C-alpha cells in the first residue's frame, strides 16, 4: 500500500468503515510508515479536540424567546382564521342550497320514469310506490323522505369535499349516467315471462322495479344485473321463439319492455 492510499483511508479507519481486508492493509502499512502513523495521530488528536466543541452554553433567554416567537405566530394565525371560517360557512350554505334545489327537482320529476334513470331516485321511489299501493295511509311526504334518505350519503360526501357545488353536481351526474341496457320482448306468454323475470330478480336479490305497477306490468328494471345470459336462457326455455330487440348492450342495469 502506498502512503497516499493509506492517508486517504485514515478517516474511514477511525470510524470503522473499512472492510476487514482494507483494515489489515492499513494497519500493516502503519507499522512500517512513521509519517502515516503521525498523520493518524494528528487526525485523532484533532478529532478529540473537536468533540469538545459540543459543549456549548446556550444563552438562558433563548428558550423563552423561541416560545415568545411561537406565541406571536399563533396570534397571527388566529387573525386569519375568521376569514377561513367565513369561507367555510359560505361554502356549506351554497352546498345546502344546491341540495334543496336537487330535492325539489327530484320530487317534481317523480314517476315519469324517463331514461336515463337516476338509480338512487328511481330505486327508492319504486319501493315507496309499491308501499303506497299496499297501504293508502302513506303520503307523498314519506316518499319525499325516502328520496332524502337516498340523497343523504351524497350530501355527506359533498360536505366532506369541502362542500363545493361542483362535487354535488358530479355525484349527481355519475348516478344518472349509469348505463341502462334495454330489451324489447315480444311474447305470447307474457305472464310466464314476467313470472320468470320476477323469479330471477328475487333469486338474485335484484329488487326488480315494475312499471307502471306490479299488477299490470309493461316493463321491468333490474339493477346491477350480473348475468344477463342466464336470464335470457331461462326466458328461451319458456318460449323458444321469443323475439328480443336489444339496445345499449353492455349496460349494468337492464330494462325489459314486454309486449
Amino acid at each position: 500500500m502506498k502512503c497516499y492510499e493509506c492517508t486517504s483511508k485514515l478517516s474511514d479507519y477511525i470510524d470503522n468503515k473499512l472492510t476487514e481486508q482494507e483494515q489489515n492493509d492499513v494497519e500493516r502499512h502503519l507499522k512500517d510508515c512513521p509519517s502515516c502513523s503521525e498523520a493518524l495521530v494528528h487526525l485523532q488528536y484533532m478529532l478529540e479536540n473537536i468533540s469538545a466543541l459540543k459543549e456549548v452554553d446556550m444563552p438562558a433567554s433563548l428558550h423563552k424567546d423561541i416560545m415568545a416567537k411561537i406565541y406571536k405566530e399563533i396570534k397571527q394565525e388566529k387573525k386569519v382564521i375568521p376569514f377561513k371560517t367565513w369561507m367555510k360557512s359560505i361554502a356549506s350554505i351554497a352546498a345546502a342550497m344546491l341540495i334543496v334545489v336537487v330535492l325539489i327537482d327530484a320530487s317534481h320529476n317523480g314517476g315519469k320514469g324517463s331514461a336515463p334513470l337516476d338509480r338512487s331516485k328511481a330505486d327508492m321511489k319504486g319501493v315507496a310506490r309499491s308501499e303506497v299501493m299496499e297501504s293508502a295511509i302513506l303520503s307523498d311526504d314519506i316518499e319525499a323522505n325516502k328520496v332524502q334518505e337516498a340523497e343523504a350519503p351524497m350530501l355527506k360526501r359533498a360536505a366532506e369535499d369541502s362542500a363545493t357545488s361542483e362535487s354535488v353536481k358530479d355525484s349527481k351526474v355519475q348516478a344518472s349516467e349509469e348505463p341502462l341496457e334495454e330489451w324489447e320482448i315480444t311474447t305470447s306468454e307474457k305472464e310466464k315471462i314476467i313470472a320468470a323475470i320476477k323469479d330471477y330478480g328475487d333469486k338474485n336479490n335484484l329488487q326488480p322495479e315494475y312499471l307502471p305497477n306490479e299488477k299490470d306490468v309493461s316493463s321491468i328494471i333490474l339493477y346491477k344485473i350480473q348475468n344477463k345470459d342466464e336470464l335470457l336462457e331461462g326466458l328461451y326455455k319458456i318460449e323458444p321463439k321469443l323475439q328480443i330487440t336489444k339496445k345499449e348492450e353492455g349496460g349494468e342495469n337492464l330494462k325489459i319492455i314486454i309486449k
Partner: protein
Amino acid sequence: MDDAAEIQLVNRAKLGDINAFETIISAHEKGIYTICLRMLSQEQEAYDATQEVCIKIWRQLHNFKGESKLKTWIYRITTNQCLDKLRKTKNKREISLFQTRVEDDSEWVMDKPSEKENTEEIVEHKELQEVLKQAIAELKEAYRMIIILRDINDYSYDEIAEILNISLGTVKSRISRARGALKKILEQNKEPYKSFFVKKGNKEGKL
C-alpha cells in the same frame, strides 16, 4: 424520549398543542443552537437562526409525515437555514469586498481578536478550541457542515445522509475530505495554527 412518545407529541403539536411543541423544542433547541453557532461562528447570528429554525418547525410540522426521524427532519431544517444565512452574508460580504477593494477573502475569517498573544495565560484546551473554531470557520461550507454533524454532534453516517439528503458514499468521502482539509489548515506554519500539533507533543511529553 422514545419514538412512540415522540409521535404522540408531534401529533398533539400538529393539532396546535403548544405545550407538546414546547417539549419537542426543549429536547432539540440545544442541538439546533450548536449547529447554528458552529456553522455561523457568531453568537448573535446563531441566536437569531435558532429562533428562525424553531418557527419553521412550527409552521412546517404538518408536513412531517414520520418518514424520517423527527431529529433528522429538524436538523435538516437547521442545516438548510444555516446555509441560507451564510449565502446571504456571503453576498453582503462580496459586495463590501468589492467596494473596499480588499482582495484576500481569508482576511475576513482571520479578522478575529488577537488575544492569542497571551497564550500562556489562557487555559490550554480553551485555546486549542479557539484555534479549532477558527480553522473550522475557514473550511468551505459543505466541509464545515459535515464536520459539525459528524465530529461535533456525533451523528451516524446514516443520519447525516438523511439530514443532508445525500448518499452514504458521498457522506463517507466528504467526511474523509473535510477532515483532511481541516488537518491541512491546522498544520500550516502560521499563526494561530503553527503550535496546534506542537502542543500535542508537549501534552504527550507531560504524560
